C-alpha cells in the first residue's frame, strides 16, 4: 500500500509540475462555468415567464431536472471523453520514453502496485475536476432548494464514469512511447463509444440494446436521476477492472515474456 501511495503521489506531483493539469482544469472549469451560467440563465428566464403567465397550474421547475442533470449527464460526460485522454496519455508513455520504466520495474514493486499507484494518481486529478463541477451545483443550494440525494448519486456515478475512462486511457498509454499517439487512441476509442450511445437513440431491438450496454455514457443516466442501479455499478467497476487487467497484460508484454 505504501508503494502504491508513493507512486500515486509521484504521479500527482508530476501532473502539477507540467502544464497538463492546469490546462485540463482550466478548460474544464471554463466549459462547466459557461454551461452552468447558460442553463441557470435559461432556467431563470423560464421561471419568470411561467410566473408572469400566472403559473399555468404547473409545479415550479426543478433545479435538478433543468440544471444539474443536463449539465452532468449531457455536457460534462462528453467533455470528459476529450479531456481524460489528455490526463492518461502520459501515464505509461512518458515512462517508456524517458526510460524511467526501467527504474520502476527494477525496484521492489509489483506490477500491480505500479498500475494501481498510477491509476490512483490520475483518479486524484479527476477528483479535482469533480469537485469543481459540484462546487457549481453547491451554489444552487444558496439560492434555491435542489434535491440533495440525486446530487450524491450523481457524484458517485460521475466518479465511476471517470474511473472507467481513466482505466481505459491508462491501458492505451501502454501501447506506445509517444504520448500524442496514446492520447489520440484514447480520443478515438472514446468517441466511438460515445457514438454507440448516440446511435442507440435510433435503433431499438437487440443490436441497439447491446450497443447501449456497451456505451459508457448510457450507464450514467440512472445515476444522474438519483438512482443507484446495481447493474450500472457493476458495469463501471467491470470496465475499471478490465482497464487495469489489460494494463497489467501490456506491462508483461513489455518485459518480453520468455
Amino acid at each position, binding site marked *: 500500500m505504501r*508503494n502504491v501511495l*508513493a507512486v500515486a*503521489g509521484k504521479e500527482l506531483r*508530476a501532473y502539477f509540475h507540467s502544464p497538463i493539469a492546469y490546462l485540463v482544469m482550466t478548460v474544464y472549469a471554463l466549459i462547466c462555468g459557461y454551461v452552468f451560467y447558460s442553463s441557470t440563465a435559461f432556467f431563470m428566464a423560464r421561471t419568470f415567464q411561467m410566473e408572469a403567465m400566472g403559473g399555468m397550474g404547473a409545479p415550479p421547475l426543478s433545479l435538478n431536472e433543468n440544471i444539474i442533470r443536463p449539465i452532468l449527464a449531457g455536457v460534462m460526460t462528453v467533455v470528459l471523453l476529450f479531456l481524460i485522454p489528455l490526463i492518461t496519455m502520459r501515464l505509461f508513455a512518458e515512462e517508456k520514453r524517458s526510460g524511467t520504466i526501467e527504474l520502476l*520495474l*527494477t525496484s521492489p514493486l509489483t506490477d500491480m502496485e505500479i498500475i494501481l499507484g498510477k491509476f490512483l494518481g490520475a483518479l486524484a486529478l479527476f477528483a479535482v475536476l469533480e469537485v469543481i463541477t459540484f462546487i457549481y451545483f453547491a451554489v444552487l443550494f444558496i439560492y434555491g432548494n435542489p434535491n440533495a440525494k440525486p446530487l450524491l448519486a450523481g457524484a458517485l456515478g460521475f466518479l465511476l464514469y471517470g474511473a472507467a475512462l481513466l482505466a481505459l486511457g491508462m491501458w492505451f498509454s501502454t501501447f506506445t512511447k509517444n504520448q500524442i499517439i496514446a492520447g489520440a487512441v484514447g480520443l478515438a476509442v472514446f468517441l466511438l463509444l460515445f457514438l454507440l450511445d448516440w446511435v442507440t437513440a435510433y435503433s431499438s431491438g437487440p443490436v441497439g440494446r447491446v450497443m447501449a450496454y456497451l456505451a459508457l455514457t448510457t450507464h450514467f443516466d440512472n445515476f444522474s436521476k438519483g438512482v443507484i442501479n446495481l447493474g450500472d455499478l457493476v458495469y463501471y467497476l467491470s470496465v475499471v477492472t478490465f482497464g487495469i487487467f489489460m494494463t497489467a497484460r501490456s506491462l508483461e508484454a513489455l518485459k*518480453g515474456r520468455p
Partner: protein
Amino acid sequence: MIEVENLTKRYGPTLAVSDVTFEVQKGEILGFLGPNGAGKTTTMRVITGYLPPSEGRVRVAGYDVVEEPLEAKRRTGYLPESPPVYPDMTVTEYLAFVGRIKGIPRRELKSRLEEVSEKCAVTDVMNRQIGKLSKGYRQRVGLAQALIHNPEVLVLDEPTAGLDPKQIIETRQLIKGLAGRHTVILSTHILPEAAKTCQRVVVINAGKIVAVGTPDELTRRLQGFETILLAVEGPAADVKDKLQRVEGVNLVEPHDTSDGRVTYEVHAEKGKDVRAELARAVVESQWKLYELRTSGLSLEDIFLKLTTKDLSEEN
C-alpha cells in the same frame, strides 16, 4: 552474490544472449566487456529483473530473480546506460521517491538521502530540477539512486559514459571504494577503465562469453609467452645479443627511442620469470639500465583478439 547460469535471452527470433554462465563473488568488482550489441545490457537487464530469461537462471544474493523478484530487487541497485530520472522532479524529490519505492523506512529516508547525495557529490543541486542539470550531474544523481538503499549488489551499465575526464576519475574512485562492502558488476567499452577498476573481467561477444579472468590471466592465456620491456643505454647489437643469451629468452626486439636509449621487447617462455637474469646481464656488462617492467597485452589487445575470433579459445 550474482550467479548467472546458462542464461539465454531471445527477443522473438533474435538470440541476444546465449548460454551465458558466470559468477560474481561477494565484494568483487567484475568488469563486463564487449562490443556494442554483444548482449551486455540485456544480461544486466535480466540480472536486475527488468527482463525475464528465456532459459537459464539468475540468482542475486541467493534469490532467484524470477521466483523471488521482490527480494532480489530489494538488494540490487541499478544504473542503466541512461539514468532513469524524472526531469520535472528536483533531486531531493527524486531521491526521496526512489528511497521510498526501494523500501527505505520513513525514519531513515532523510539521513540516507543526505549520505548518498554527499557521496555522489550532488549536494549543490538538491533543489534543482533534474531536467535542468548537466549530463555529469544527472549521471551522479543516477548513481545516487542506485546506492541510496545501500544494496548488496550494484549493476552499473556504462557508469562513466558521457562524463568529462575529471568526473570519470571521480566516479571511478567512487566505484573502487565500493568494493568489499558491495558486489559490483559494471559494463564498459573503456578498456583501461575496466583494467583500473575491476578485479576480474568477463568478455562477451555476440551473446556468448569468450573469456573470464583477471587481466593478467587473460594475457597469459592469449599470449603464450611473457613479455618484458627494458630500456637500456649501450651498444645496440651487443645488448641484443647478451639479452638473447639469457636462459628462457626466445626473442629480443629493439625499438628505437630517443636519447640513445633503446627499448627492448623481450619474449620469454611462458611461466618463466627472467627479469632478474636480464637485469644482471645488463648490469654485469656495465650498461645503464633505465627501465625494466613486465608488459601484458593491453586490455585493448585482449578485447580485439577475443572479439574478432569466431570461436572462443580453449588452451
